[in-house]
């Protein structure tokens, strides 16, 4: 790791202040992505601003919606009986992130803010039509992920919670990388407010909704509705794990597996 100044934020205002005064500051939540990034010297921030102690950003509130505080660990979401009662697909997704130790530290806010193309939560944000709340505003899930590791967040903006509508039904299926458990492809299929939504992660530069799959499933959530359906590989990622063409194939297979869980 390069040298950096470690700063611990005592409040949202303090965090914003530390960020404003840093030459090149970066926020640290659980650190499950940022610390490996720093260790590989892929980032060289002047200041690491630890927001992990802001307990007000922790916790789960289940009512008409499911609101998850930004610092809530994946393990807490996975273990929450209330979340499982409202959105079992979200519990399944959280339970499948990384491994047990990573789930104890990694947070939903950190995952979403990083916009890793292979992270799981982004599929839920776009697939369920979540709202990302920050210290400044609320951002519609569809508008949140903008590119590889890029989001709609402004400089210094901090996610405070992610709020999911409760879908009529939803399921998540992923094809994990066997070593890292990141999604080679992950697909969230959901019926929200009488509309079908399909959120895809792992396949493209950032999470996106698949218009092809949503159109195919608009008439009803059945596996056979996906027979013969294909998605374009044009904008998808190719790397040592999978070619764009293979990812395009997996998107449809994962969508079929998600739908099969519902029927």
């Amino acid at each position, binding site marked *: 790791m390069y040298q950096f100044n*470690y700063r611990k934020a005592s409040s949202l205002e303090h965090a914003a202040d530390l960020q404003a005064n840093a030459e090149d500051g970066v926020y640290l939540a659980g*650190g499950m992505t940022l610390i490996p990034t720093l260790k590989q010297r892929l980032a060289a921030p002047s200041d690491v601003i630890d927001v992990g102690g802001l307990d007000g950003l922790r916790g789960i509130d289940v009512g008409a919606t499911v609101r998850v505080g930004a610092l809530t660990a994946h393990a807490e979401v996975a273990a929450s009986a209330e979340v499982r009662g409202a959105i079992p697909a979200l519990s399944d997704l959280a339970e499948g992130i990384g491994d047990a130790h990573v789930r104890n*530290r990694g947070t939903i806010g950190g995952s979403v803010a990083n916009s890793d193309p292979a992270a799981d939560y982004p599929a839920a944000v776009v697939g369920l039509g979540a709202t990302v709340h920050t210290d400044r505003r609320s951002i519609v899930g569809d508008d949140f992920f903008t590119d590889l590791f890029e989001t709609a967040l402004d400089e210094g903006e901090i996610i405070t919670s992610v709020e999911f509508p409760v879908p009529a039904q939803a399921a998540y299926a992923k094809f994990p990388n066997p070593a890292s458990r990141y999604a080679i492809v992950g697909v969230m299929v959901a019926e929200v407010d009488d509309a079908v939504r399909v959120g895809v992660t792992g396949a493209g530069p950032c999470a996106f909704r698949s218009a092809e799959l949503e159109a195919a499933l608009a008439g009803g959530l059945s596996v056979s509705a996906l027979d013969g359906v294909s998605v374009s590989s044009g904008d998808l990622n190719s790397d040592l794990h999978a070619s764009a063409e293979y990812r395009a194939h997996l998107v449809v297979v994962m969508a079929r597996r998600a739908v099969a869980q519902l029927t």
Partner: protein
Amino acid sequence: MEVTLTVNGAPHSLDVPDNALLVEVLRERLGLTGTHVGCDTSQCGACVVHMDGCAVKSCTVLAGQADGAEVTTIEGIGTADALHPMQEAFRDCHALQCGFCTPGMIMAAIDLVKTSEDLDEQAVRDGLEGNLCRCTGYHNIVRAVLAARDNM
């Protein structure tokens, strides 16, 4: 940067670099070399310790994040004369070969048993997904965890 943490019940205040990792503090400053560094990329689990009661990969926790925390390492769970039931089970079931992954396996397994209901073989295999054994001795590790489950 000064950090204060309690390790295996003993309080410590240490001056460490801002980019120090928890595992470096444990091994290099406190001499607790039972916690191993295997991959150093948060995949292998050799460095698992308990921080405030949860299993964490100490190669992927900054010392500053552990400030104020209670940390338990493999040295803190039993003694040579009175092993922890999980250590006892690993010995009884021949659940170690080279032994490199064993401290992380044991710390992960203790957390798994504590936080699981109805722990069966598949749940043990799933729960230890973040711990790699390069000797590939998983079969006896799973047997040991299931044996310890009944004695903890």
